């Protein structure tokens, strides 16, 4: 299967070297081709579903539970300031 690797790279917000793109594009294509095999199955009698599990209506009550303490929340942040996660300046 053909893969538009440059578009995929853009969507995934990653950078690839040209030689990496050349190597990965056919590999990803093969993966897709493999999954594509599923299309050969006859599913006329199978009801479409979003899940393999037959569960539905898994709910919780609208009841408060403990949140994390802020030090823990920010512990994995590369940088934080005044209780906020610091990220590169957002301009859109």
């Amino acid at each position: 299967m053909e893969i538009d690797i440059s578009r995929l790279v853009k969507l995934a917000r990653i950078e690839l070297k040209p030689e990496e793109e050349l190597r990965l594009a056919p590999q990803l294509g093969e993966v897709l081709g493999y999954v594509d095999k599923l299309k050969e199955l006859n599913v006329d009698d199978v009801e479409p579903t979003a899940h393999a599990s037959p569960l539905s209506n898994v709910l919780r009550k609208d009841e408060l539970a403990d949140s994390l303490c802020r030090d823990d929340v920010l512990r994995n942040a590369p940088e934080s300031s005044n209780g906020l996660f610091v990220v590169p300046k957002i301009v859109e």
Partner: protein
Amino acid sequence: MEYELVIGLETHVQLNTCTKMWCGCANEYGSDSNTNVCPVCLGLPGVLPVLNEAALRKTALTGFLLNCSVPGYAKWDRKNYFYPDNPKNYQLTQLDFPSTVDGYVNFESLGGIVKVRINRAHLEEDVGKSFHFADYSGIDFNRAGVPLLEIVTEPDINSAEMAYDYLNALKNILEYGAVSDCDMEKGQVRCDVNISVRPKSQSKLGEKVEIKNMNSFSGIRRAITYEFKRQVEVLEKGGTLVQETRRWDDDAGVTDSMRTKEDAHDYRYFPDPDLMPYRPSDEWLSAIREGVVELPLDRKMRMMSQHKIPQESADVFVREPLLGDYFEQAVKGVKNSRSVANWVINNLQAKLVESGTTIDGLTFSPAAIGELVELVESGKISGKIAQEVFNEMFKSGVSPLGIIESKGLSQVSDTVQLKAFCEEVIVANPASVDDFRDGKEAALNFLKGQVMKISRGKANPKMVDDLLREMLVD
């Protein structure tokens, strides 16, 4: 050439649940940053979101209030995009099986009642909040995961004014249903505007421009007015419009382009594997249906026809539901409903504001207002005394009749007594008597005032008027 506007609105409304959509963190505005946050809100690996039943309930109720149907199956999808306020790099939303579909809203606009169709109201999650500093941005995830209802109209709106009226009507309905606090200041209502123009004769829609993330209704009205003018100008000059997303700059009063179709987002939706679908049961739905309240417009129409009150009064009672409820209690069994409405709107409301109390804090029952009106109607007390009784009633909570009896405020309608008052005044004011006899009508008002004064406001004004005229002619 004449052009017409075609507008569709996507309104995002935060539901007023106690906790967030997928976890038990507080759905609360104004907490210290990143204190209502847990691994689920942060999208940490291995967490399992679970649907908040109250959010589903409020969504279905909203659906009913917007005349939508609630399908038997709803599911959640991941909308993938990268943005720092989106901790999971996807937003949970409902793509093809939303919780409610196909409704409409009737509301007053452009001097009549108009209808806007609702395509769907679906449930999704809010994202975090960004703060921008000189050389970095900061993110607070308290808002991430707050249940957010997206209400999407069909492109049925054709003017800035109509969009404005729709939004106000929608807000009113959501407040009536108590599904959202709709506090604009807190960003609980935000709107994306889809807008295009086309020559009036053309049936094909023009290129769609989306104005993102507006948070004030008046701003939306201005933005639409601006966009209409801008788009018509482009077309008039022979230019072409492109499908794009624009941003409204409220200070400058202009929109500018954020991105065009070429770099439109590709969200790569897919069903969320962690969240199970929802199939509302009949019992669940009928319990929710019982919570369906009378809509603002229906209430207005009913109040006008049932109580024969003017539109202006009904508008007040729709805007102030508690005051309206109070009026409906007070008016029970009272003939002059207009008068009751006036008392509630003018006197009671003013007094509540003046004293800083609320309706719940009143020490007298609504029926007391009705009683007061009846006392004026039957001529037992004058309007002026009624005012005094009302003030006393507001202070002490004693019934109007009780106040009148204890203070001896009953109106004097006894002819003999009134004649005596008049006689006294005529004797004491010969100059005014002459003036009146010379044809000065104003002199009679003065004499009437004197009678009211010596009767301590208790004289029946109508009878005093008649008596004075009768006695002065002689």
